């Protein structure tokens, strides 16, 4: 593995963290999205998991999205009889999203993204410095 | 272990010795005989000092490259070796041009 590999690996890391950021942002944006029909299910929290797999094109092990999933924890139920999505008993199902957790996850994803970016920049700096020797 | 820098300094020493010997032979009579050996001795001393500085620089660099070694030491050793070599080259260039001037003198 060399510096070019380092750049490829870091770029894959950035891509993966971007996906994670997007998913977390979507969860946050839909934290209060209920169904439109009575008794219907609201927005269900989405999850994403990573895996380190060999990429055929480059021959390197790159981090990638293992799968997209949904969080199966129960929905929150609030008593709102006047709500369009209220069921017969007057309860509305709300998404199983905790905004605080999503925010924390977003911060982590951002931090990891920046760490990967830093790795990319360092590898590029090292290549650049070697090239400079030719000047 | 022989290195290019050591081989070069040895070759340089040989070249200087040859140059001084010929300069002395050509201008034997007018030059003060007592002064010339002292000059050669001084030159040899300079060469050896530079060679030592180059060796020190090399070993400090090897230390740094194998993960040990003090950065400050490397900086000092390399700088000193570089300065020593440049000084030597300056002296040598002056000597060669003086020799050439002497050679151009009509008999």
């Amino acid at each position: 593995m060399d510096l070019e590999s380092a750049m490829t690996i870091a770029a894959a890391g950035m891509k993966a963290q971007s996906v994670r950021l997007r998913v977390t942002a979507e969860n946050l944006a839909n934290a209060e999205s209920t169904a439109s029909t009575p008794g219907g299910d609201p927005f269900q929290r989405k999850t994403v998991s990573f895996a380190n797999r060999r990429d055929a094109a480059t021959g390197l092990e790159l981090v990638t999205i293992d799968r997209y999933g949904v969080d199966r924890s129960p929905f929150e139920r609030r008593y709102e009889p006047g709500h369009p999505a209220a069921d017969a008993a007057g309860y509305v199902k709300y998404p199983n999203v905790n905004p605080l957790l999503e925010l924390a996850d977003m911060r982590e994803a951002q931090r990891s993204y920046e760490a990967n970016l830093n790795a990319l920049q360092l590898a590029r700096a090292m290549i650049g410095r070697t090239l400079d020797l030719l000047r | 272990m022989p290195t290019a820098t050591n081989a070069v300094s040895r070759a340089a020493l040989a070249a200087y010795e040859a140059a001084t010997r010929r300069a002395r032979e050509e201008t034997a009579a007018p030059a003060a005989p007592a002064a010339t050996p002292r000059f050669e001795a001084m030159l040899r001393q300079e060469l050896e000092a530079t060679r030592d500085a180059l060796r020190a620089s090399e070993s400090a660099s090897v230390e740094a490259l194998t993960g040990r070694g003090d950065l400050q030491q490397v900086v000092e050793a390399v700088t000193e070796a570089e300065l020593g070599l440049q000084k030597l080259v300056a002296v040598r260039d002056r000597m060669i041009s003086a020799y050439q001037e002497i050679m151009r003198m009509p008999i």
Partner: protein
Amino acid sequence: MQPRVLLFELMSGRSRWLAERQAVLSRNVANADTPGFRPRDLEPAGFADLLGRKAGGLEPVRTSPVHLAPAPPERGAFRTVDAGGAEASPSGNAVALPEQMQKMAATELDHQLTTHLYRRYMALLRTALGALQS
């Protein structure tokens, strides 16, 4: 036969080691959230490791240090070791980002040192060789 210039061989080996280390560290950072992933690092390379090479075939002889070096014979990769601590996340991931960033910074500085040394010794050689011409 002209002996190989030790110092330049070391610098070349060191450069290679640092490049590979950077790739290993990048891999760690990219997998900071991969379940079960444990970070790795290169074993510190000593004198012999930096110069190490597989038994090679014939190589053209360099009669002067300023001649371009022939492409080096196939060299093996450096050894990696598990560098994860005892602490791991619930998913089994053992990567600590601050540690990885610190190692990367050290690698970068080492690379600067190696490259600068290379420049200086090349300049030294040119100065010395200049003295032999004319």
